[in-house]
């Protein structure tokens, strides 16, 4: 699931100062996390210093059909604006931007990902959708998402007391895998030499499924 952070003032304000603004805010994934305080701080500042011709707090800006309706509803104000400011994840921003492709649209947010695809409750696990699942060789613990180096053949030398050298709050994925395989009596799986990933799958498989309309 996508969560956002608000960009710094230094990054946003110079772009938009002295422009009439229309602000789109999306509370669609607010249930996941939204830094409302930070967003309000910037908007309050803008209300004082810039001319804001309209504001809309409307959810699911990632839905093209909805955004089309939103734009129609606020068309008068949007027409007056010189810059359209969006408080939404990267998907919402791109959708708004594509529907207002002849207008200047800026985002105020940096987007990051929390485990759990499209839900609202973060999960413990993540899936990189690699297309060649390793879980049967690791007792159900994903080496790609749990190991920052995405190692496939056992741990690197960096773990200390079972903790990862890169992320000391996290357990070494391969220690976890070892423990799990031991518990299910499948330690012999560790002997298997895992071949490197086939990254071309990401392209070929995604593309073959997509019906790209021109």
């Amino acid at each position, binding site marked *: 699931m996508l969560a956002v952070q608000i960009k710094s003032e230094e990054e946003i304000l110079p772009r938009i100062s002295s422009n009439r603004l229309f602000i789109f805010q999306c509370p669609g994934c607010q249930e996941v996390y939204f830094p409302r305080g930070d967003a309000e701080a910037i908007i309050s500042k803008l209300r004082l210093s810039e001319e804001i011709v309209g504001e809309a707090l409307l959810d699911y800006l990632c839905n093209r059909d909805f955004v089309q309706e939103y734009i129609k509803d606020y068309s008068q104000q949007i027409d007056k604006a010189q810059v359209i400011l969006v408080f939404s994840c990267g998907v919402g921003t791109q959708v708004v931007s594509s529907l207002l492709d002849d207008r200047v649209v800026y985002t105020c947010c*940096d987007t990051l990902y929390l485990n759990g695809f499209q839900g609202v409750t973060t999960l413990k696990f993540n899936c990189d959708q690699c297309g060649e699942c390793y879980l049967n060789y690791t007792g159900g613990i994903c080496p790609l998402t749990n190991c920052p180096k995405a190692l496939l053949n056992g741990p690197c030398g960096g773990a200390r007391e079972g903790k990862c050298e890169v992320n000391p709050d996290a357990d070494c994925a391969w220690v976890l895998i070892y423990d799990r395989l031991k518990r299910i009596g499948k330690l012999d799986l560790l002997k298997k030499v895992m071949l490197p990933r086939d990254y071309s799958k990401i392209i070929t498989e995604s593309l073959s499924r997509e019906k790209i309309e021109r």
Partner: protein
Amino acid sequence: MKTSLTDYTKFRLQPDCEIKEIFKQVNRIFILSCNKCYQRFIDESEEEYTQLIEILGVDYKKIVGHVPVDFLCNDFLSEKKILGMDLSSCDSVGVISCGLGIQFIAQLLDGKPVYALADSVPQSRNSTSGVGYHGISLEEEKCAGCDQCYLNFTSGICPITECAKSLLNGPCGGARNGKCEVDPRLDCAWIKIYERSKERREKFTLEAVQIRDYSKPSFKLKNDLSLLNQTRRYEGFYGGLHPLDKKGETEDKRIEYFPEPEVAVIFLSQHTGKMARPLVKVGDEVKVGQKIGEADGSISSPIHSSISGKVVSVEERIHPASQRKALALIIENNGKSEPAPSIEHCQDFEDLSREALLEIIREKGVVGLGGAMFPTSVKLAPPKKVDTLIINGCECEPYLNCDNRIMVEHPEEVFVGIAIAQKILGVGKVYIGVEDNKAEAITTLNNYPDKSSSVEIVSLKTKYPQGAEKVLIKRILAREVPDGGLPLDVGVVVLNIATIFAIYEAVIAGLPLIQRVVTVSGDNCSRPGNYWVKIGTPFKNIVEHCFNGSDEEFSRRYELKMGGPIMGIVQADLESAIIKGSTGLIVMKKSPVRASEERECIKCGRCVEVCPMQLYPLYYGFYGMKGELGKAVNYRVESCIECGCCENICSAKISLLSFIKKEKQYACSANKV
């Protein structure tokens, strides 16, 4: 451009040879399969399982059981389901789901071999960035979650997900005819960026050299936000939402008296149960507090006049709760405010017997003021023994502050009212549940010197719909009201704060229920506040007094809700009036996209995550759309408390509540047959 539900898939079965290999190693395998999110609704969807059987040939006999699960990755609900299954006879478990489901099951059944029978399918199309997450709707746009958004430099086209090499400083030399060297079906992202900048008449300059910072987002940030999310989501009870509270405008406003109406519209049904029988006719003079409608039967309540004047009509008006025509007494105010002789102060309620107290409460027309309007005298005489009284001070809907202000301004009356109720019920323990967004109320109640030691104030982390009876009981007492049951089934009675105040007024001041606190708020509200409003005050009086804007603009762009924004009822007719259950009057700007019965569910699964009753609301929508009433009972629709969380979070904006209501009506009438 939307990806159609038929084309999108998060997982597919592993290659045949790998599946056969797995089955060589097992003897008795139990299969758990996920019904797939983002999939065209197929009744009893078991595509992959069917394929599996075909691949296995005779080895299919090794399968000892199969359970399809909706949203396997919903760990709370899936865990409950799975731990409830008997897996003792199998030596292994096979899982058909995306990577999330498999990892979760492996961890849950730690110790038992768990096999992945499916592969996650790549979605991002970009092997350089690796990942690219689509939003909630299945549009083509994806986000790599880089935490350093470049969209402001690239006219709104993401260079990381759209450029095969995730270049940040312009195109490489590989594009031919505007297509990417990786696949001629793909546009060169940088040419798209350039073209869009032209459309925007932005100077295409390729700003300062961009270099990605791969240390972002930091592990710490992700951990902190995940933890924050988990805490909020699981606080108190499963499911629920944290809508924007919007209480700031009225939470500090002292309750004022709203001007009496010149003409009062007093409905004869302001309670659960049978409508009251009118006791007056056209031309009769009535006084303040005079009984003008008699309770009809055991589940009913009397109605009293809130003003003094003359009955000018007995006619049908649109009832604000049912939105259907209902009988009302129209009374013209004579401006004298003459009280009825039945209004008498009581010296000490301790002198009165339990039965006498109940009779006063019944006679004075006290009903549940949280919105349900159940006759309080009936509630206080439960057929089963109860041991606990819970006072509901949660007021979990946004905007509303009536209960809040009563707690802050009238703690004395609240505690006396509680003492009365406690005496009637004979319970040894009372809890007042208050959400923690009402700090002043909690402090006021805690600091009140004369409260009984049997009364405990419980501060609850704010989450909607904490104020729903069943949710509140589970939260405070960890008791679960059975499906289709009532609080008294677990030895509890729940009363709303405003009801407690009404009990005080009825017993101590002798006042029948003729006015209540109403929060008036919303968009474009010139006089937001909490008002003592006389029962029967027409909505138009309040709208005129409290809102900016012309009538025309109002009807075009705004709507009036009685209650809160989530469960409140839209009032089309401003000639309708305040009833005993009117907690709030909120004017809201109409959303450009309204919940509809026409939209297709995209199976995102969010409704399941937010349902406090742990139901699967998407099926109500699914069967509702197909017009197949009666099927939803398989999904426990009778347990639904109609809190509206599902409809509120629905990413396809389906009017789930209207389907649910239809289902329940159908079930009701089916039962009667």
